[in-house]
């Protein structure tokens, strides 16, 4: 007798999206299981960010389906949305609010009461080493610290699904280590993590599954931890391009 499969925390099925003539998503399908770190890698314009934007509702799909915790994403409701945290494009942070206030409001927006939100803000300020800047307004932070703030804002309510679009972009090495700890800890407590990155070595180190996105669709997977990940990645991309000479691009 086999154990029943757990419901994926996220499922994207045959997602299609056009911007005029441009086909940004072309039948993208993927899942994220509880406790899994699922990394998306691809060239610029491959469809990673568009796919993530479709998941959270930034953009409406032309076709296909997104489910969060087993329910259609568009109508998932407050209870499921409270279990989601994401950073796509721009991290959360109102420039005129302090670091502490921004985190507390982000936690409250995910359904927590004010007192719990303040406690979570204090804990995450310490965890992400933002104590020096906790009373500083977000507009006065460096790009890297803004990114740390954004991470705290989406992780402090301990979501069951964390979606991070290129989270290491502006982080220094210390920030990258903190981010990795946050992602690994989230997965260890059972949360699913969907993360996109251009830093293949970082992805290789922590992901349980690596999916290659190209031309708006999944074109293959890579084994985490293998050497020469970049070469395997480009082999996949070139092979797909060679077999689709008039192929669409995202």
């Amino acid at each position, binding site marked *: 007798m086999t154990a029943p499969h757990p419901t994926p925390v996220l499922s994207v099925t045959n997602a299609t999206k056009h911007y005029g003539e441009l086909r940004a998503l072309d039948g993208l399908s993927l899942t994220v299981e509880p406790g899994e770190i699922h990394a998306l890698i691809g060239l610029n314009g491959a469809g990673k960010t568009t796919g993530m934007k479709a998941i*959270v509702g930034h953009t409406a799909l032309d076709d296909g389906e997104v489910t969060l915790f087993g329910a259609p994403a568009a109508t998932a409701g407050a209870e499921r949305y409270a279990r*989601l945290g994401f950073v796509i494009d721009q991290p959360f942070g109102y420039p005129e609010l302090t670091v502490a206030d921004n985190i507390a409001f982000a936690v*409250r927006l995910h359904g927590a009461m004010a007192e719990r939100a303040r406690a979570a803000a204090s804990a995450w300020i310490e965890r992400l080493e933002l104590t020096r800047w906790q009373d500083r307004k977000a507009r006065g932070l460096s790009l890297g610290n803004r990114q740390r703030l954004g991470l705290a804002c989406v992780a402090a309510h301990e979501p069951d699904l964390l979606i991070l679009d290129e989270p290491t972009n502006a982080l220094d090495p210390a920030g990258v280590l903190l981010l990795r700890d946050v992602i690994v800890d989230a997965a260890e407590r059972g949360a699913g993590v969907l993360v996109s990155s251009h830093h293949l070595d970082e992805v290789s180190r922590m992901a349980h599954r690596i999916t290659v996105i190209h031309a708006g669709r999944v074109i293959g997977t890579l084994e985490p931890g293998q050497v020469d990940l970049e070469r395997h990645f480009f082999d996949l991309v070139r092979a797909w391009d060679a077999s689709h000479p008039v192929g669409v691009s995202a």
Partner: protein
Amino acid sequence: MNTALALAATTFSRSLTARVTTALLLVLPALMSVGLVGLARSASMAGPSAAKLAPYREGTFAQASASLAGQVVSALTLIAVGFAIAWLMGREWADRTFGSLFSLPVTRTQIARAKLAVVATWAAASVTVSMILVTVGIAIFGDGSLNTTTATSLVKVWIAGLATAALALTFAWVAVASRGYLGAVGAIVGVTALSQVLASVGFGSWIPFVVPALWAGAGGPDAAAAIGVTSLAIVVGFVALGLWASVRAFGAARLD
């Protein structure tokens, strides 16, 4: 306080926009309506300036100030409240914070309603305090000319100010439709100019942004008499439609 209201109130109260528009709304009406009438009646006034201020020497000090307040309060309220709501709505795009408001237990519709409620409350309080300052100014500098008739005029100016504030909230829709506050700022300038032109050629009773000021007497007794139930219905309908459309547009907006 619920989360959407707390967030809107906190971000607005800590903004430069709130500080500047509050100062405009509180200080300028009293300064202009009492100050200009006082200046017009001072013995030192002479030359072209005296001629321009001549209308403010007619009637009692209180009557002249109340009449001037009717013009100043409506125009300033439209601009200040319009700027405030345009910023609070449009900043979500200008500061690129809108994307973080998706897929939350607190919906974008609730957030839009909270923003409108916060600015409406601030505007009502500011207009009220402003009219108290105008009244106190007249009481102090008006040589005892503040009487029941003038007090009634001031109450009408206050109500007109509140109505204009409600009308100004509809610029929220322009901010959402134009994905930022600059479009709404342009619309405020355009509406203010166009309303003056249309009012001057006799269409004021059909223009919602002009109706409150005309009703309060800013256009004279004949223009005030022309404001009836139809004009009132236009104002109420415009505000209701504008608020509904603003909330709906904010809730439905995407980041395509």
